[in-house]
Each structure stands twice: as C-alpha cells, then as structure tokens.
C-alpha cells in the first residue's frame, strides 16, 4: 500500500476532478503500465484519451517503476502558443 501524488493537466483535470490529488495504490511499487490500468479502472473516462505520463518531471513509460510519494503527471497533447 502506498500513495502517489497525481497531477492532471489540461482536459484530464475534468476527468480526475482535480489538478492534484493523492492516489492510493495497493502495491508497494508499480510499473507505468500497471499504473495506467489502475487509473483506467478508477477513471473510466480516460479510456481512449491520448496522454503521456511524467514521474518527477520526466516522461516515462512501460516498465519504469513508480514508487511511494512520486509526483505523477498526466499530460494530454500540448496546446500552447
């Protein structure tokens, strides 16, 4: 059991309901792929959305391991400028 800090940007904020919240995970550590499954289970509206995940301000994917207290940012395609 651990908690990560989940930050949602752009339109994803409308799905998670907050730009920053604690997100509890039953394991001690998860891969990014596993985290995505947990997120989809908790927020079904994420299904089909395009987004990238940054952990502690670096883009990560696949087997990268997410641990307790990490800052996890969900980022949809950028639209600055």
């Amino acid at each position, binding site marked *: 059991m651990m908690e990560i800090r989940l*930050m949602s*940007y*752009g*339109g994803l904020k409308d799905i998670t309901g907050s*730009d920053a919240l604690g997100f509890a995970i039953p394991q001690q550590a998860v891969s990014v792929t596993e985290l995505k499954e947990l997120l989809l289970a908790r927020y079904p509206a994420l299904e089909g959305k395009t987004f990238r995940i*940054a952990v502690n*301000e670096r883009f990560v994917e696949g087997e990268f391991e997410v641990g307790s207290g990490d800052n996890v*940012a969900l*980022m*949809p*395609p*950028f*639209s*600055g*400028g």
Partner: protein
Amino acid sequence: MSDKKPKNIFVEGPISPVKIGEDIAHHQKKTNIGAHSIFMGQVRADSVEAAKVSAIEYTAHQEMALSTMHEIREAIFAKYPLTCLHITHSLGVVKAGEICLFVFASAVHRKEAIDACEEVVERIKKELPIWGKEIFAGDQYQWKENRG
C-alpha cells in the same frame, strides 16, 4: 548568449504590445544586430458551432516547461549564431485579440534570425507542456488542440 539557469518565460495574462515596443527599443544599444525576427501568437475568436471563443485560459506544467525551454534555447544557440533570444508565454486568461506568445530572435544577419525564430515557435508548440482552454460566452469551454 545562453544561460546556465532556466529563465522564466511566463507572464500572467496577455502580453502587452507596449512592452513589446519597449523590448524592441532596448535592442538599439546592441549595434552588432542587423536583423530581428518576431513571432506573436494572438487569441482568435474562432467560431465553434454557434459559439465564439471569447478567451483562452492557459495552464502549464511550469517546471517541465521551463526546463524544456532551457534545452530548446541551448540547442538554438548551438545551431544559430544569434545575438539574443527572448520568449514570453501567457498563463491564465487571454482574451480574443490579445497576445499570448512572443518570440524575439536577433542576429547579425537575417537568415539566422528568421530561421531561429521559426524553429523556436515550432518547438514551443510541440514540446512545451502548456494547455489552452477555449472559453465561450456563458462559461462553456473546450480544450484547444494545436494544428501540426
């Protein structure tokens, strides 16, 4: 010249044309400059079905945006012999007709200033974690998407 520490590029609200005029004036001391290339993004009152965009509200992952912008600056200075490069992007609400992005590249010769400015604009649009929320009259909104 490129710096070691990421510079801030964000301002709250729109970018003032008066401020842009002042920025241009400040470069008159640098008499080795021969060419300035400027890009400005302006919020459009696009029509979506019956509604018109009245403003865009910008949010960003600021730390990632600034460190990415720093990398872009370093790459641009390595690639082009620029005299200077200034970038400003709005956060928060920018109304239709107001300026939300200002890129200002200066060099001895025009080609470098023009090419560097264009490349910075393209990289900002693609690589900076910034999001625009298009706000319509009556609290409705949709999330902006950049064209390729």
